[in-house]
């Protein structure tokens, strides 16, 4: 690692020379007393588990592609990936934000409890699976079974959604601007309210997107699977 631009507040980690473990250990320990507020990670080369378990108000810019679980269990930090990411970016995110400039593979923000995850490109299947309160904004389209068993939070899709959207939803809400190629079990399209428009407007602004709010459709749970019923046994 080295300091950038002679600034005590900025630091560069070259993952071509340092290890992911070095980076994570720094983020977990030395960072707190260092006064560093910005970290640039170079040569990530698709490595897994970059910047996981961070609990500090730091911005992390990853210059390149990252593998699985980048930003996993994040608290407070603002992480930007200037490339594509593998599976489960921001899994179990609690707070802070993660922005992916490129595309994301499966299971974006799986089981995320809070914070904001922005995918500027497309996200593959199961985007927002099991989410528990985080917000996700996808600039492009999402793959099948997105928001599967999502419990709380909001998924905004500015492109299209593949089949099985919102399967077995609980209280999470999905907004889709483009085409919905099929809803999952117990998911239904509902009318947009003023609150819905306000929520979408807020998330689009925070994500840096500008779309006509009138194009968005709301998908939420019909709540018919909330109580176990033998007549529904193929739908659980």
């Amino acid at each position: 690692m080295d300091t950038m631009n002679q600034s005590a507040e900025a630091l560069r980690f070259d993952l071509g020379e340092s290890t992911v473990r070095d980076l994570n250990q720094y983020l977990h320990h030395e960072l707190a007393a260092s006064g560093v507020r910005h970290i640039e990670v170079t040569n990530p080369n698709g490595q897994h588990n970059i910047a996981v378990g961070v609990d500090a108000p730091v911005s992390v810019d990853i210059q390149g592609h990252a593998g699985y679980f980048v930003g996993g269990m994040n608290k407070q930090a603002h992480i930007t990936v200037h490339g594509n990411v593998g599976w489960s970016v921001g899994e179990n995110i609690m707070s802070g934000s993660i922005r992916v400039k490129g595309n994301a593979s499966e299971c974006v923000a799986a089981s995320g409890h809070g914070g904001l995850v922005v995918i500027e490109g497309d996200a593959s299947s199961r985007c927002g699976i099991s989410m528990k309160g985080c917000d996700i904004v996808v600039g492009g389209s999402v793959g099948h079974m997105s928001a599967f068993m999502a419990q709380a939070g909001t998924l905004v899709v500015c492109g299209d959604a593949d089949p099985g959207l919102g399967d077995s939803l609980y209280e999470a809400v999905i907004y889709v601007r483009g085409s919905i190629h099929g809803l999952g079990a117990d998911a239904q399209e509902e009318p947009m309210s003023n609150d819905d428009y306000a929520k979408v407007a807020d998330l689009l602004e925070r994500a840096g997107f500008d779309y006509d709010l009138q194009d968005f459709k709301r998908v939420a749970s019909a709540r018919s699977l909330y109580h176990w019923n033998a007549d529904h046994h193929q739908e659980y």
Partner: protein
Amino acid sequence: MSKSVYIEPNYTYGDHTLYYIQQAAEHGLYEIRGLGAKRRLPNFDDLTFLTASASRYPLEGYREKCETKTVLGTRFAKNPIELGIPITIAGMSFGALTAQAKDGLGRAAGEMGTSTTTGDGGMTPEERRSSKTLVYQCLPSRYGFNPDDVRQADAIELVIGQGAKPGGGGMLLGQKISPRVARMRTLPEGVDQRSACRHPDWTGSDDLAIKLSELREITDWQVPIYVKIGATRVKNDVKLAVAAGADVVVVDGMQGGTAATQQVFIEHAGIPTLAALRQAVEALEEIDMVGQVQLIISGGIRSGADVAKALAMGADAVSIGQAAMMALGCNARHYHMDGQLVDATEDYAALGTAPGHCHHCHTGRCPVGIATQTPELEKRLDVEWAARRVKNYLQTLNMELTTLARACGKSNVHNLEREDLAALTIEAAAMAKIPLAGTDWIPGAGGY
């Protein structure tokens, strides 16, 4: 003169089967219940110890020391877990159990120097406070799972499956989704909550390796990472867990319990603990990882004899769930309140059962206040009284374990070995690969 009545036994459509068919016909629902398999299965009772005599030298049972210290997680973790006894408390959720029950288990385990385990509902402050050593489960549902609790855990257990329902998820019925349980799981109150059968963020063994690595990174490689599997294709699964980087593998056999799942799962999926243990040990032997990766076996461990036999077969430790609940008072006729024993028989009857036969954990109407979220029922568990009972039970198991070990000439319970055992049935001999008593015969070995 009346005709004599002859009741001919029917082994195909006996009382149990007839009742099952009639219930299915009436309700159109399969049965959901708690606890584990009740059918007759080969188990540790089908083994016996060949204790010392002329050819082996015993230790004095009441005088000579027999070590029980157990260390888990020596492979990668900077801080392996050191336990006073090789008997741990298995994962049981807050939600399935009351916070008081979890508290009681933690206190008892702490007194005995062993660990408890969270469950499918997150970590409660009560159990963290009361548990000296707490294993934090990472389950498919991820209910309540968060990095703060990850960092205050003494070990992480990534749960792939459990013996009562390998390959299946769970169902916590709405009557147990109290406001606190709902809040911890981020669910609406009263909803019938499904627990997923697959993890949300990885699939397959290659992904598992990356997931374990993520957990290690988050915990700075400090604490052991366990992988728990339900016993089905044990050899393959143990090898995959080890290849993925597990410090400890937990194998939960068919007799393992649950708070709620389909009866058809409990009785018709997985393999018995006895067979699972042998396969797990063979897997570690085949990849030369015995001693590097520790093995915990669970599923129907009830007595010190069971513990001793499991260790002799190659386990490093055992884990108990149902038996610990029973020590708390599960299925007892009485509960303890205000210094008095109160008869709960009528409450069992209201559930359509009786003390000793109850498996109605799923209803939330536990007559003894253990598997409930109803405030009035929760009061029936006197935590101090229950913790003392669990501590006594663990102490008894440990005394039985060391008694058998000493009689086998072992100054350390981990020195118990397969040669100390004989099988009493052909099935047990085949599954455990222990010779049938009085013979050198292991069915299947050597082509016979």
